[in-house]
């Protein structure tokens, strides 16, 4: 496992037995652009080489802070953004960006929007909002009413007749989010891609919506990719989690592996700052602001903020030079716990807790 492996070749031979239903392969999305908060011009490498698999019936959480590229990656997986490098595969076949193919793709892979108040048309009834996707794809069908009712019922709006003629303002936040989900379910998709599906909801409602997502997986065999900043959401519903930082996945594995035994210093910091986290070493508050995708640091992209490098622990492990000069290889996106960190690779991650405690508590 050389650290300089070309991202294009590193995905060959991932350890999956079955073809994942959805796969990102060395995906890169770059935006050329105007002036950002830092005032810099140039190309923003929003997604900078990401491999990620979603297996059939699997829920994968893509977590990270704003600006890490998770929304761009989710949009790319939906075919809404065209990768500038790498490709997206659905059931093993590369996604074609011809508009007819995309249309067909989008009925099988559905987007669940973030903000239900913003994504529902306030002047449309629940029926009109939910039926929209069906009409776009199939025109007016004879069983339209039944299919809308069934989608509402699957989204937990029961009995559906009670909701059909209501307007968004007559619904609670949780009910609106259910309408958005019903709109995604009407075409019987195989994969849901959800971007912060519960971010704007109250905690008690959030739990109900997350439970619905688990039910949909259980009853309909749906797969899902959920982009979120909320690690608790991943713990609540996901099978696997990928942590994104500045356009790259820096740690991937099962939820238990990544959230209970995190290896990457960034993942560890993220977990440690959760209020009430109970992390014994205390919070590791990273200084500074989230970095700028227009100016990705050389070497490990996390090195300017890395507490392990700053504390000298990386130097003691003999990897400090690599941290500042060698970009860790792109992680394979299939099953297995992987970390893009020279230090974690050297000290063997959380199995050697003594070497870990020092830097993390400082």
């Amino acid at each position, binding site marked *: 496992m050389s650290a300089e492996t070309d991202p294009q070749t590193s995905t060959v031979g991932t350890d999956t037995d079955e073809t994942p239903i959805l796969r990102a392969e060395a995906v890169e999305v770059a935006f050329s652009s105007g002036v950002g908060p830092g005032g810099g011009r140039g190309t923003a490498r929003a997604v900078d080489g990401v491999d990620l698999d979603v297996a059939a019936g699997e829920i994968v959480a893509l977590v990270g802070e*704003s600006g890490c590229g998770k929304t761009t990656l989710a949009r790319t997986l939906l075919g809404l953004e065209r990768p500038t490098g790498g490709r997206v595969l659905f059931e093993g076949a590369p996604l074609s960006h011809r508009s007819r193919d995309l249309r067909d793709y989008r009925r099988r892979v559905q987007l669940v929007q973030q903000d239900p108040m913003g994504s529902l048309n306030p002047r449309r009834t629940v029926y009109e909002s939910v039926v929209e996707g069906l009409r776009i794809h199939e025109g007016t069908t004879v069983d339209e009413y039944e299919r809308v009712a069934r989608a509402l019922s699957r989204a937990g709006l029961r009995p559906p007749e009670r909701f059909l003629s209501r307007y968004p303002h007559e619904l609670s936040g949780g009910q609106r989010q259910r309408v958005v989900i019903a709109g995604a379910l009407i075409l019987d998709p195989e994969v849901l891609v959800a971007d912060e599906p519960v971010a704007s909801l109250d*905690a008690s409602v959030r*739990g109900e919506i997350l*439970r619905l997502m*688990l039910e949909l997986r259980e009853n309909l065999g749906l797969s899902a990719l959920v982009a979120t900043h909320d690690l608790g959401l991943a*713990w609540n519903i996901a099978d696997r989690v990928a942590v994104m930082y500045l356009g790259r996945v820096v740690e991937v594995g099962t939820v238990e592996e990544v959230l209970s035994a995190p290896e990457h210093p960034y993942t560890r910091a993220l977990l440690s700052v959760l209020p*009430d986290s109970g992390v014994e070493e205390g919070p590791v508050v990273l200084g500074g602001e989230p970095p700028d995708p227009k100016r990705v640091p050389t070497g490990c992209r996390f090195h300017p903020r890395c507490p392990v490098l700053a504390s000298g622990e990386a130097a003691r492990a003999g990897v400090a030079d690599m941290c500042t000069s060698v970009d860790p290889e792109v992680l394979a996106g299939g099953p297995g716990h992987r970390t893009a960190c020279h230090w974690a690779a050297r000290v063997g991650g959380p199995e050697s807790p003594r070497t870990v405690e020092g830097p993390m508590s400082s």
Partner: protein
Amino acid sequence: MSGLLDVRDLNVTYTSGAGDVPAVRGVDLSLEPGDTLGVAGESGSGKSTVALALLRLLPAGTRVTGRILLEGEDVLTMKWGRLRAVRWVGASVVFQGAMHSLNPVRRIGDQIAEPLLVHGTVPAKRVEERVAELLEQVGLPASRAQDHPHRLSGGQRQRVMIAMALACEPRLIIADEATTALDVMIQAQILALLERLVEENGIGMLMISHDLSVLSATCKRVAVMYAGRIVEEGPAHQVVHDPAHPYASALSAAFPKIGDPASRLAPRGLPGDPPDPADPPSGCAFRPRCAMVETVCATVDPPLWPVRPDAVGHSERRAACVHVGSGRDGIEGASTPGETSTEETSR
């Protein structure tokens, strides 16, 4: 009645053509200097209305009764001039998304200087120095004073708002969802900053949030609101980790604890919706969603009772539920259901 803030029987009713909407119903709060009190609740619970009422920021025509003593002075009966002086100097507020209220065409430094100049807190020639000091206090380099807001990230702008709130050295800071919508790392930075300011300057902080985990980590005491009332109040750790009221308990369970097998692949919410404030249910407002509901709940809206009181009936914690401690005895002994419902309708 000393103390920094003492709120007694606060009632706020929004009036509109469609009728009166009670948003806050009989809330009591008190806060000492150097103390932190968290108010938790979901949308429509009345928590932000409480924040607005404290500095009389509610829309005209809103009916506010009760007493709000800020350092012994009643905010509700203050003259306008006095109220203007109290805002910023006595107490200041940081709202959610406050960073969006920065003027985009004025430099950061000038905006922080404004409350200083208006209130004459420091002599004009010292203003620049004070602005630099404030920026450093919130972890921003003094040179940022020269920048316009668009040069700053969201977290930095929210810190500028905190610097403004601190400008006149208020004795009380009201933080209403001040870190909501910020990234966890920025949230952690800002919470650590607020905690440090409370500790170093001995100011009081009233922190209002939907996020129970934030309150439990930051505040000494927490009050949980539901449908305009406080339903449980006490030491933060107890209220969050060992709640007595069924609503507080459901709210606490809705925040997953990473690493806790009980919440793994088992999200917990609360079925149903909060009551329509214009048409609340009889008795306990939580009754329609409560798993422990009994017949008596339809007629009794219980006051806050001590939870597991000691021999002399004292407890650090109180909850408004007939299932709590002396709640049932109290109701059966002290008042009949009839009386309680009269009291409720007379609001």
